[in-house]
């Protein structure tokens, strides 16, 4: 075993941390307050090279490994960036761009990846529907082929970046009879006729990320925009789950580290009964509990990242354990962070308030905690033996 990072990984982490502290953190409060996508922050991330981090250099990326990508996610959030920005980044880089890279042909890669890598185009990924979440086989959006086009009909829900995306990977049914092997993935451009954004959804947390309902009404998609082969859609969707449970979770780790630092600072400065509240055990022990959660989270997340770097099919159990832990214990830690801040913890101007609202997403997005438990339980009882 070896739990260390390479010197390059450490140096990159430090670099991203500084960048985030200097460039992204000052924009966070306002973006959260307005609940609007923060274009200046996005462009800065693009210029820094974060938006194409894991894409090969050939397509404008940096060719980073997954562990490095997780470190970047951690560092951006630890530096004080707003959670929605991190979520948009995740949907764009990992769910959309990487999916096109992994499953796309050369033509598709060359057409879409360079502009996604710089952030000039924004990417999105659409699987969830009003009536289908983790039960991906229940989706109803259909894609019927007529000549050189597939015609998409249906509605997608909770799509991160949906309202602002230029390029979207959309999962739809091409053959209902074949069930999960009758599902396919398509690359959609925003100006395709018949594609429109329904409501833009207002959220409790990760507010600077735009989330929308997408509507497809006889939307023609050229056959050349089919991703992979017909019937690959289910596996393509499954592949994004690995990102949902690794790089997309890393900002929650960084956010809690940011919160812990804020708590330590606050507890030292805030005085009650003539002494800093940091000298009270009730506060000290909350800090300790936050630290335990952070370190455990780190080990679980980087295990998933490391496994992905080994090119191994990620054991779904390890990914589910990581996500379950981040979701459940992240909320606990974020709640303690607010508690330590007392009345100030409820105020917008204190970052812990925002982190508290953001934390809930980790227990819901990309599969709820209940789905994670389902995955773990199934793996235990399908083999009949403990793992």
């Amino acid at each position: 075993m070896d739990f260390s990072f390479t010197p390059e990984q450490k140096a990159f982490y430090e670099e991203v941390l500084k960048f985030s502290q200097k460039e992204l953190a000052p924009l966070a409060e306002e973006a959260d307050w307005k609940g609007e996508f923060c274009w200046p922050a996005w462009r800065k991330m693009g210029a820094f090279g974060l938006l194409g981090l894991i894409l090969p250099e050939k397509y404008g990326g940096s060719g980073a490994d997954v562990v490095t990508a997780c470190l970047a996610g951690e560092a951006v959030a630890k530096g004080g960036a707003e959670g929605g920005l991190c979520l948009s980044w995740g949907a764009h880089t990992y769910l959309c761009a990487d999916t096109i890279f992994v499953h796309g042909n050369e033509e598709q890669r060359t057409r879409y990846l360079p502009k996604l890598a710089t952030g000039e185009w924004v990417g999105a990924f659409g699987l969830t529907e009003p009536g289908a979440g983790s039960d991906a086989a229940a989706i109803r959006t259909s894609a019927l082929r007529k000549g050189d086009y597939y015609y998409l009909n249906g509605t997608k829900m909770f799509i991160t970046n949906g309202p602002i995306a230029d390029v979207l990977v959309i999962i739809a049914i091409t053959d209902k009879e074949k069930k999960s092997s009758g599902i396919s993935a398509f690359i959609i451009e925003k100006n395709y006729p018949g594609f429109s954004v329904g409501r833009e959804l207002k959220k409790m947390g990760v507010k600077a990320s735009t989330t929308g309902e997408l509507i497809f009404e006889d939307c023609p998609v050229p056959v050349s925009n089919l991703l992979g082969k017909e019937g690959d859609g289910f596996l393509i969707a499954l592949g994004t789950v690995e990102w949902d449970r690794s790089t997309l979770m890393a900002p929650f780790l960084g956010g809690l580290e940011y919160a812990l630092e804020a708590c330590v600072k606050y507890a030292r400065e805030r005085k009650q009964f003539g002494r800093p509240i940091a000298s009270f055990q009730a506060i000290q022990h909350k800090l300790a509990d936050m630290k335990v959660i952070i370190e455990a989270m780190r080990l679980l997340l980087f295990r998933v990242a490391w496994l992905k770097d080994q090119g191994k099919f990620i054991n779904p159990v390890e990914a589910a354990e990581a996500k379950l832990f981040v979701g459940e214990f992240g909320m606990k830690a974020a709640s303690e962070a607010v508690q330590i801040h007392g009345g100030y913890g409820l105020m917008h101007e204190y970052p812990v308030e925002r982190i508290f609202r953001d934390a809930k997403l980790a227990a819901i997005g990309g599969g709820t905690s209940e789905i994670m438990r389902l995955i773990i339980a199934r793996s235990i009882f399908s083999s009949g033996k403990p793992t």
Partner: protein
Amino acid sequence: MNYELSKEQTEFKKRFQEFCAQKIAPRAEKIDKEISLLFGNYLLLGEQNFFGLILPEKFGGQEQSFLTLILAWEELAKACPSTFLSCAIGSSVASISLNLFGAEVCKEKFLKELSKGKKIGALAISEPQSGSDLTNLQSYAQKSGAHYVLNGRKSFVTNGPIADLVIVLAITDSMAPLPKRLSFFLIEKNTPGLKSGPPLEKLGAQGAPVSELIFQDCFILKDNLLGTEGEGSVYAAHIKDFLRLGFATYSLGIAQACLEESINYAQQRQVDGKPIARFQEISFKIADMQMLIDTGRLLLYRSAWMLDQRMKASMDISLAKLFLSEAATWCATTAVQIHGGYGFLKGYKVERLYRDVKLGEIGEGTSEIQRQAIARSLLAAGY
């Protein structure tokens, strides 16, 4: 970065797991009533070289890594928490301490037999009035020519009634500040003036004898001073790290045993014509158990790896112990709950594990003490 054990470690763990399942686990239920079984386990574990895992070859050891040691510890704790408490936390940590700080002649004299399990070691640090707080110790070793004379009383000594040799922490300079006040000594069982109290009745881990030790004018040879006089509190910090690793592993082993018992029971027990494993109320609890155990295991393995890398690991060990002991208590409670009425009956393994598990949150620094240690490292000096 590498999250996998080496091939040798994986094989070693598997071999040791099989050994524990065949030889140790079947005796776990009876061991609290039959001390002879514990002595038998010493011999069995001695044959497996358990006690010498990280000791030097010249003393019959194998010079393995801390991580490898933890792998063996985990399996032993899972098979029999009482045996683990006596053999690992009691005897092994005493041998490790002797090896780290003892004089060469002293090591020559004792380590070979300790590493074979032919002698039993113990550590005596706590006193009736002093647990994690070393400033409050009272046992005193008075220097007198070529030896020391020890007087005092030590409490909660694991292996106290059965140890062949005891490593004792005592004051050597009562006027000195704490970092220079204490020293460790090795004392043999037959030393005149050393008496053991009766084995204490306990909630759990009943197979591991724990008692008070009373020292009345015990003569200690100078060679039996560990390391340098006055360095006791520095050595104690190291020894505490091993003890905390020990209790973290104790908790991990028990939690894993609770998980495995729950999985088996949930597949057998039927309600409404189907195994209770098919109900989410049960299977989700088991999923949570596994998630917590796997997480705690990573914290523990990383701590051991850090020790192998000679990194400062005290806080990480505290993190692992705190997380694992509290997770294990939850796992044991949940395992009893999953077993329903049967979980409450003597003879069901989870009933015993439920009683055994609590010690993990108390031994070698309560959860409160661990939180304190972690908080201090976050807040730095002054708190």
